[in-house]
């Protein structure tokens, strides 16, 4: 039950003006394995929803092939494709009851009335909303509609389950709760799933692998941990979480570490992949939470020294902006548990350090 996208591109043309065209998806290659949950993540307009709609069959790719369960499905219309979609707006049929909504797909398959009822009740029991059985859609809350939409998609036992930003209409707390539930249901039924979202936290928590997209192209495909700790380029690093980019130059290369010169001081940094050369200009990616700060009256030759220019107190954390001589971008640091760790004030001088393992090196050409 795998999904394979081969060289998929999609060009939209303006109806009135033939010259105007938008390349929504550019040469996308992706393989989703059986039972896997893959998230398409990216800013709005990055082509993620178009890609999803190409899998479902609502859009036809301009070039490329869509394979589902080992079959090329380019010419198969959406109603004959073995995919089920959970829509952003849920798309609950407003004139049908909850049970009729959930059983809609089975009715289409020609199931008998009693069988449909039995199966609908079974699914609703697993998904824990049996009490809504005979309700009308207008009597449902957002979260309940979401459950109905999911149940309606799952009951068909599709080869592939598609989610189009299903949680974006819910409030923050419900969103967190529902994403756990979606993941639970997906694992319970073991359905191969593709999930579109622009919420990075959602993507990191819910998926086996994350596909980061920008301007129609795939930027990186990797597990959540890999995406966060070893982004392949500046776009991915910047899009997921918050990040510091510190420019430097390689002055020495060892087996697993590089000696990088930051202008004021030098530091050894571990690297996992990439073909770096001595004298190459690089960018060091360090997450704000990886930075350690200490009072900076005494200059430490192994640290970056800077002056605190702004601080924001958030309760569990405190966020600092630090101005560093010779760096155009301010350094951004997050300190956890500020009560115990102690505060710095605006104007304080600090020494900033990080562990070599917490940093990640990008070559200049990975800027993207």
């Amino acid at each position: 039950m795998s999904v394979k996208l081969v060289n998929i591109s999609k060009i939209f043309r303006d109806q009135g003006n033939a010259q105007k065209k938008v390349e929504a998806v550019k040469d996308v290659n992706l393989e989703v394995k059986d039972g896997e949950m893959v998230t398409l993540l990216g800013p709005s307009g990055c082509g993620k929803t178009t890609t999803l709609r190409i899998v479902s069959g609502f859009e036809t790719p301009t070039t490329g092939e869509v394979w589902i369960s080992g079959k090329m499905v380019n010419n198969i219309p959406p109603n004959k494709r073995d995919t089920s979609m959970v829509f952003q707006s849920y798309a609950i049929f407003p004139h049908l009851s909850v049970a009729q909504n959930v059983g809609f797909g089975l009715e289409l398959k020609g199931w008998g009335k009693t069988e449909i009822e039995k199966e609908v009740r079974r699914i609703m029991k697993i998904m824990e909303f049996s009490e809504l059985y005979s309700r009308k859609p207008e009597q449902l809350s957002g979260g309940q509609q979401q459950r109905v939409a999911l149940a309606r998609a799952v009951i068909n036992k599709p080869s592939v389950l598609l989610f189009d930003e299903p949680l974006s209409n819910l409030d923050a707390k419900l969103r967190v709760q529902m994403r756990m539930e979606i993941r639970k249901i997906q694992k319970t039924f073991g359905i191969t799933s593709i999930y579109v979202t622009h919420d990075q936290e959602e993507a990191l928590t819910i998926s086996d692998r994350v596909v980061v997209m920008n301007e129609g192209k795939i930027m990186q495909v990797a597990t959540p941990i890999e995406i966060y700790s070893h982004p392949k380029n500046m776009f991915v690093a910047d899009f997921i979480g918050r990040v510091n980019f510190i420019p430097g130059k390689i002055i020495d290369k060892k087996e697993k570490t590089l000696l990088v010169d930051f202008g004021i001081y030098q530091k050894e940094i571990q690297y996992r992949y990439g073909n770096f050369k001595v004298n190459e200009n690089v960018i060091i990616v360090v997450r704000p939470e990886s930075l350690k700060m200490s009072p900076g009256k005494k200059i430490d030759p192994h640290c970056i020294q800077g002056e605190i220019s702004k601080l924001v107190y958030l309760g569990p954390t405190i966020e600092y902006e630090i101005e560093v001589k010779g760096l155009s971008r301010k350094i951004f640091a997050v300190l956890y548990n500020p009560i115990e760790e102690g505060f710095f004030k605006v104007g304080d001088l600090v020494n900033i350090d990080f562990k070599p393992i917490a940093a990640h090196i990008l070559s200049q050409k990975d800027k993207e």
Partner: protein
Amino acid sequence: MKNYKRWLKKSSQEIAFITKDPILLLAVLLIFGSLIIFILYPLCKVITASVFSKGQFSFNVLKDVISNWYFRQGFYNSIIMGTLTSIIGAGIGFLFAFTLARTDIPFKKAFHLVAIIPIISPPFIGAMAIIMLFGNNGLITSGLLGINNFKIYGFRGLLFAQVITFFPVAYITLRGVLESISPTLEDAAFDLGGSRWKVFKKVTLPLAIPGIASAILILFVETLADFGNPLILAGSKFPILSVQAYLQITGMYDLPSGAALALILLVPSISVYFLQKYWVSRKKYVTVTGKPTASSHKVVSPVAKWILFAFCSFLAFIILLIYFTILWGAFAKVWGFDNSLTLENFKYVFSVGFEAVTDTLIIAVTSTPIAGILGMIIAFLVVRKKFPGKREMEFTSMLSFAVPGTVIGIGYILAFNNPPFALTGTFLILMLNFVFRYIPVGIQSGVAILQQVDPCIEEAAVDLGADSQYTFKKVTLPLMVPAFFSGLIYSFVRAMTAISAAIFLVSAHWNLMTVQIMSQVESGRLGAACAFSVILVGIILLAILIIRLILNLFYGSFGGTMLKI
């Protein structure tokens, strides 16, 4: 050239797509065929009849008609009448709508219902009542004031009748416009220090201007096409084009001249209609707000409020007076001479003209559902499907909104007099005429509701394995039910009250109540005309009641709330 090629490619792709869906293909072809035969073909006939004389192409007929001063006068009168009625009618409609939408005067619901009455009754009732009130033996002129020979026929009377007949259309349009303007905008302007008058002048009015312009143009088209009021009230000294065309054909048996007059009538109607549809209506402001906000009623000062209340009361009084007059007239022995009550008029109607009642009912009851269903299907195809000629389909089907009934009527007698479509005098010609005149209503309400329905809902059905017919039947159609029924009520009302096209198409076998009423008025039997009108309005009210009951029964609040008539 490149564009042409792309168009060709796109069309061929669409054709390839549509051939995969044979039912869709069949539907598209059938609809196109019938639109061409029953809308375009009669219109072409009107044009050809006026530019071909004795099989030869020539502009002689048109030239003759244009050089005739009497016809020219008719044209000027029609345009002047259309312009004045539309401006005054839209002004009154705006004040009425503003009062009901923006103040908290009492009896709002009652005012609304009173303003609706002219819409659901035959358009010439105003003219009849005016004659009964202000005519030679009028209740007010000769009865109350003792004036004899008061000249109500002509310009003044007709303007009065048409304003009363058509201002409700402007009211309905503008009430929608005003209600879509969020009162928070006015509150904001008020809060920023504007006086009430300034807020109205700087915020409310400018936001409503596109709506007002659009109402004026719609009223212009409707007044230009109006036939009943001028036939009764215009008189020979104040000729009106639509009546002239009719008289030319039924009185002089001069079809080419009639067609030429119809053509002259068609040009301003069509141009103004498309000006409204494709230009003015695009200029509407959309005020996007999160949640609907309740009007704060602070935009109108108490003094202004009661002035507006007095204005609305006066207007409501006039409308009620008109209908009361008709009701009284139906029960009066001889209007103007002996106004004591009797049932003679109804006895007369049931003995002489009852066939017209059943004929009208049969035609209305058969044509409205067909028009409604066809309208829904076209709306669905136009909004949701891709096929070549989609825009042309919408354009053609909306055309009958713009074309005056007189023109359509003349077109139908020209087109369906001979084989292959020899339909003159039959039930079919009346029914088809009504079907194709009133599909735009169904299309409009269908398009409106489909644009509100998230396409995802249909996609969800397709995604779960439904094909296009199943999706339409099980998902789209049920969602369109409320629109279908409100369209149905509207086209039923229109079919029951239509006169301008139908008057050309009735025969000894198939007659209509409206035509009967007209001939009673012309032969001076006002009592019978009133009795007919009372029965007609009674049937319409009953039908609306029944449809609403059915909807409430089957759909509960889901269907019932959508019907606002």
